[in-house]
């Protein structure tokens, strides 16, 4: 391998890693706030790409149907549980959030579609359409078992992923898509050819990570999310509702996953089931960060991307094997350096 090739592989790897960063950071965010290891996150990214592709061709994306079905189910679940616990007065507010808001988003997309919107508008529409999916799934699937063990939540999350892949096939069909490139520009950096798309991926990843940092560090909502992650009882005693924190975490995480889907769609062909590998590799990155540290997660995700890039050059057939085999030494290393994670570290 010459240094030229190494440089190209490194840049390619960093771009791939940058995509994993977005998904991995969202995974960590949701895990710390809700204790759910949200496997379907990669599916959210893939669905965003499929949605954007449908919007490009002027078709009504399958996401509309998916969101409407989920909105009805979530509304039923919420009204049922409110009615049963004697808090019927909250039903109008619940309906506005779980039914009206997703329906309005779907309607908005339906009305905007014939106007042949420009690319930035299409991207915004795709993100808007995908963002309700995870909070709705949270309401339907995870809220009733919010106090269950992490393992049970993980198993349910795994099952949910398979259900979503099936729904993906139903709503999007089996065809793969590739969206229009976001930019055609190309640059020479230190004698290495870098195309604009790669640069855009890295920049977007840095910008969104930075925005997340500002959100956590400087807004009351962001701090409340961190507080929920650190100490749920303490948060409740301050009037912070863990369920609401969870919804916000899912929305923010979905935005990150959606952006990664949009960035990856012009580079790779995306099918309804392409999300799984993306989510799994982001998961490896998140594990390197111990499912807790955001900088650690980002470094881990970039590392996975670079490793994958070099692995696919050495042996394309074995690249997944190499990446996932990596998980074993990492888990051993983590279990050695960090003693077991305690639920409460107070007193």
């Amino acid at each position, binding site marked *: 391998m010459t240094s030229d090739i190494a440089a190209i592989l490194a840049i390619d790897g960093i771009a791939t890693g940058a995509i994993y960063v977005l998904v991995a950071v969202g995974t960590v965010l949701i895990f710390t706030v809700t204790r759910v290891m949200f496997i379907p996150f990669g599916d959210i990214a893939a669905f965003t790409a499929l949605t954007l592709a449908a919007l490009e061709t002027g078709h009504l994306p399958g996401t509309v149907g998916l969101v409407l079905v989920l909105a009805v189910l979530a509304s039923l679940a919420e009204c049922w549980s409110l009615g049963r616990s004697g*808090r019927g007065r909250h039903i109008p507010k619940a309906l506005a959030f779980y039914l009206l808001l997703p329906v309005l988003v779907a309607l908005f997309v339906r009305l905007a579609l014939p106007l042949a919107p420009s690319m930035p508008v299409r991207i915004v529409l795709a993100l808007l359409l995908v963002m309700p999916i995870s909070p709705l799934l949270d309401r339907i699937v995870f809220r009733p078992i919010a106090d269950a063990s992490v393992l049970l939540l993980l198993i349910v999350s795994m099952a949910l992923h398979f259900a979503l892949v099936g729904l993906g096939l139903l709503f999007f069909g089996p065809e793969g898509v590739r969206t229009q490139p976001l930019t055609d520009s190309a640059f020479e950096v230190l004698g290495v050819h870098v195309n604009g798309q790669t640069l855009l991926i890295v920049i977007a990843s840095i910008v969104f990570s930075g925005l997340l940092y500002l959100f956590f560090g400087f807004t009351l909502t962001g701090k409340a999310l*961190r507080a929920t992650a*650190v*100490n749920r*009882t*303490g948060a409740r005693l*301050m*009037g912070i509702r863990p369920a609401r924190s969870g919804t916000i975490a899912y929305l923010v995480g979905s935005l990150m996953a959606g952006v990664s889907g949009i960035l990856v769609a012009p580079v790779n062909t995306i099918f309804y089931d392409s999300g799984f590998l993306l989510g799994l590799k982001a998961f490896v990155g998140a594990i390197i960060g111990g499912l807790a540290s955001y900088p650690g997660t980002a470094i881990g995700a970039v590392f996975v991307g670079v490793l994958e890039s070099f692995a696919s050059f050495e042996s394309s057939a074995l690249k997944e094997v190499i990446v996932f085999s990596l998980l074993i030494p990492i888990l051993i290393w983590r279990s050695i350096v960090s003693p077991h994670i305690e639920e409460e570290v*107070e007193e």
Partner: protein
Amino acid sequence: MALLSLRNVSVSYDKVEAVRDVSLDVEAGQIVSVIGPNGAGKTTMMLATMGLLPLAGEVIFEGSRLNGLEVEERVERGICLVPERRELFADMSVADNLILGSYSLKDRSGVDAALQQVYQRFPRLLERRRQKAGTLSGGERQMLALGRALMAKPKLLILDEPSLGLAPLIVREIFRTIASLRELGVSVLLVEQNARAALETADYGYVLETGEVIQEGSASSLIHDPKLIAAYLGGH
């Protein structure tokens, strides 16, 4: 009308009744103390009052029933619990812990002023405002827990064993702080094993034993009761 009334409250863990048929009043502006030995059900009663445990009976606050309200709704109505375990946000800075104390307030305009007041009351917290809460000493943690609760501008503050595990000098400071809450118009329900300090600070007291109220009265009468002196107050 009392600010907070518990009416025939019982709390059970599975089949074991930890609190049995307790009635209790906290008048506005009062400091009311619940004393009793370890395991008498004091903490259980406070957790149930806050909505963290289910109870039988009635909890009435400012004339309306709290039964069926979530913890968060009780916080929004002006009840704040400082639990025995403090429940601080250990990984977050002292300043962030305090800011989060004000989370339930819809009106954000007074938050900065409230923060300055807490820093005035506990200058140690000002010194350590950038430190993580988990790195504080026991006394500082209790100050932070109190300060965080005060940020919510509560009408009723429930303090569970605020002196637990603290050095005598700091215990005195904490009780001085609690006594000074009267001037702020905050009513206090104080649960303590340190019966003498609690009764010296309080207006009224209840004695809880094995889940039942066995005695109540003004704090000054309780503190001179020979039976209580023998049981809890030590032979001073």
